């Protein structure tokens, strides 16, 4: 188990190194000069000012030297200064990683719980009305782009049924309210973005758990359990779902990366103050260090999520515990 963990951590670290190098090169290949953006934001600039900005931000060095410097800094935990904001990338990300994790985890939990529940219910009667509805819902949910869902929900809840706030993470006027009110306020703001982000994955989990449950429900031990007179609920949730949950667990780990990229769109649509929106804005501003920093953290989150999935998979499935 320990050697497995060490091996996974080493792979993870190598993967991160690859991610950093690739991101660095890809971003520098994009056209556009950050010095011009900064000068533009400042209200125009002279050649001297442009040259000074390029000098200040180390943009005059050859690319490979810039990469070397960057890697050295990353190893020391320094992700650099944002080109755009007068702040370090670490501090910018520190302000935003919380909201992103909150959004992504909420969406993950929502999609797994509701998706699995729908799938289990549908699997009980594979040709029934509910099963059909779940299939239709799953197909639609999977097919519609997440930003479209977001915009439709905004239209619905902004004008037709103004029950949920459609932008931001908290009401600014409640910032001095007691924490319980602020927590409720954040939960209230979280509903639409979390649901929007969850909907694609919710559909997938519903399909997956339906298929997986149908397979398991046909197994001999389920028939035996039913023959013994075990209550149907126990059969479904205790005997069947435990086994059917293994593929769900695998997919949940793999989907984590997709959820983070989905968060970029959802955060942009709902003005959610997370890393995704920071990444989106930073790309438009050619703020290389910030883009790199966000990608670094996002990749780290995915790598960690995958390692955790592998571990939990081994815990959940006794067959995997012995060998590699």
């Amino acid at each position, binding site marked *: 188990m320990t050697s497995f963990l060490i091996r996974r951590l080493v792979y993870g670290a190598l993967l991160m190194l690859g991610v950093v190098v690739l991101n660095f090169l890809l971003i520098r290949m994009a*056209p*556009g*000069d*950050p010095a*011009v*953006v*900064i*000068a*533009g*934001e*400042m*209200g*125009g*600039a*002279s*050649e001297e*000012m*442009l040259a000074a900005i390029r000098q*200040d931000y180390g943009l005059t060095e050859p690319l490979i030297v810039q990469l070397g410097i960057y890697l050295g800094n990353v190893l020391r935990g320094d992700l650099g*200064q*944002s080109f*755009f*904001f*007068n*702040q370090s990338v670490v501090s*910018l990300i520190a*302000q935003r990683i919380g909201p992103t994790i909150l959004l992504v985890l909420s969406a993950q939990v929502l999609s797994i719980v509701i998706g699995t529940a729908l799938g289990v219910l549908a699997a009980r009667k594979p040709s029934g009305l509910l099963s059909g509805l779940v299939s239709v819902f799953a197909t639609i949910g999977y097919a519609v782009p997440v930003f479209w869902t977001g915009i439709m929900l*905004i239209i619905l809840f*902004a004008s037709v049924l*103004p*029950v*949920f*706030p*459609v*932008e*931001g993470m908290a*009401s*600014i*006027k*409640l*910032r*001095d*309210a007691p924490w*319980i*009110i602020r927590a*409720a*306020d954040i*939960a*209230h703001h979280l*509903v639409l973005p979390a649901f929007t982000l969850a909907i694609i994955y919710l559909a997938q989990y519903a399909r997956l758990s339906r298929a997986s449950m149908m397979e398991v429900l046909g197994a001999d031990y389920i028939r035996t359990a039913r023959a013994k007179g075990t209550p149907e609920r126990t059969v479904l949730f205790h005997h069947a779902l435990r086994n059917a949950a293994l593929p769900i667990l695998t997919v949940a780990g793999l989907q984590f990366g997709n959820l983070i990229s989905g968060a970029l769109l959802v955060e*942009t*649509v*709902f*003005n959610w*103050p997370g890393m995704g*929106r*920071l990444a989106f*804005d930073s790309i*438009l501003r*050619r703020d290389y260090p910030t883009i790199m920093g966000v990608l670094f953290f996002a990749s780290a989150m995915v790598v960690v999520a995958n390692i955790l999935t592998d571990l939990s998979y081994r815990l959940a499935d006794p067959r995997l515990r012995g060998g590699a």
Partner: protein
Amino acid sequence: MSYFMRAVKAAVLCATALTAPIAHADGGTLVIASTQVPRHLNGSVQSGLATGLPSTQIFASPLRYDETWEPQPYLAESWETSEDGLSVTLNLVEGATFHDGQPITSEDVAFSIMNTRDHHPFKSMFAPVETIDTPDAQTVVIHLSQPHPALLLALSPALAPVLPKHVFGDGQDPKSHPANSAPVGSGPFMLDEFTPGEAIVLKKNPNFFMEGRPKLDEIIVRIIKDSSALLIAMENGEADMYPFMAGSQEIRRLEKVDHLAITSEGYAGIGPINWLAFNTASPKLSDVRVRQAIAYAVDRGFITKALHRGVSKPQRGPIIESSPFFDETIPEYKVDLDKARALMAEAGFADGMELTVDYIPGPKEQQQTVAEYLKSQLKKIGIEVTVRAAPDFPTWAGRVGGHDFELTMDVVFNWGDPVIGVHRTYLSDNIRQGVIWSNTQSYSNARVDELLNAAAVEMDEAKRAELYAEFQQIVATDVPVYWINALPYHTAYDKRLQNVPNGIWGTLHPMDMVSWGE
């Protein structure tokens, strides 16, 4: 789930109901919504509306301006320009302190003006400032290399924030000084919290040197980049003020909201002009007759009345029409397609030509829509226009700064005095490769250079107006730029707000008199 959500909603509504009136009774909170993202909060080293709005609340300046273009006392209680125009003396108020309690002295003012001169992108504001003497703590004497009529305007809150020398003068690079994001200021509001790209929270400065001000307890600038989300926040009272609103749909939509008032006042100083610039170095556009033909073919009235739904005002010349220097009598090029075709033929383009128009990425209605209108309109005089979109600002800036364009839509600000915002577009010594908002038109006219250089040092207001009048006549004939409209900036605000700033700098002005009425 639904029960939970109802409970949450009820709790939030309760909290809103409970906190709102309490907050408003004692000074209260003003929430300003903005799409503009400031890099930091120090207007001494950064131009623009995004930084200007918080910077003018955090920092005081020597002078301030109301709607009459006349300077008013601020940190300087009086001021005097010498006979020869070569020195200006400021007498500072006594007892003013920075947010950390240190006194504001002449040393700080001198340091700040020099800092702005050396590090602000608008070089012309303080370029003639040679030295500054501080004979005592309350007296500042600015020595100039030449008379500088724009100086007093450049001492405005938006352009000359007074910084604490003991914080900013520590030898670090002023452009990336950490205090730019966490400033110790001198103005009516103090920084409480700054989340880049999200929000700026400002609290009342209880020791502000102007008695009884500010009225508000708190100003929060909320950055909402998505304008539809911003409009919803204005409609449901999450935000109380929305400055720099330029979209006709936005303006028309908020006009219908009962609790909001809308004004177009407060933007004369910024003087935002939306225009079509010509690359006069291009062989197709070097002939003035081609440029005039295009001017005769375009219908400014159609753009402002139809495309902008009547929210924007036509702009006929290089100086914003709301400025005292604007010359009413310049040619305005009323639509005349026959004349336009004749001019094209005279210039040797009777068979027409092909042109590409770029546009600065920004509000679609001001830029892209107009560019597309040009395509159909110029076809009538034989010009085949290709509209070339830029995916983002750097791409556009690269093309225009690199003089790799034929026509481009652009928005350029006057910034109060022509010396600051107008000269840069027309002076031939400001034709500089790689620099946007310089003379990217490559326009060169010796008489224009002469007039602008004379106006830059003419202290007599009337004589200066004459120089600018002649300048405007010449450029309106040469049309290096076809001016279209003043960007229709509007401010929407809660009707209960009192004294919403409507001077020449609008919300780039200390909001120390703004308060909540009944």
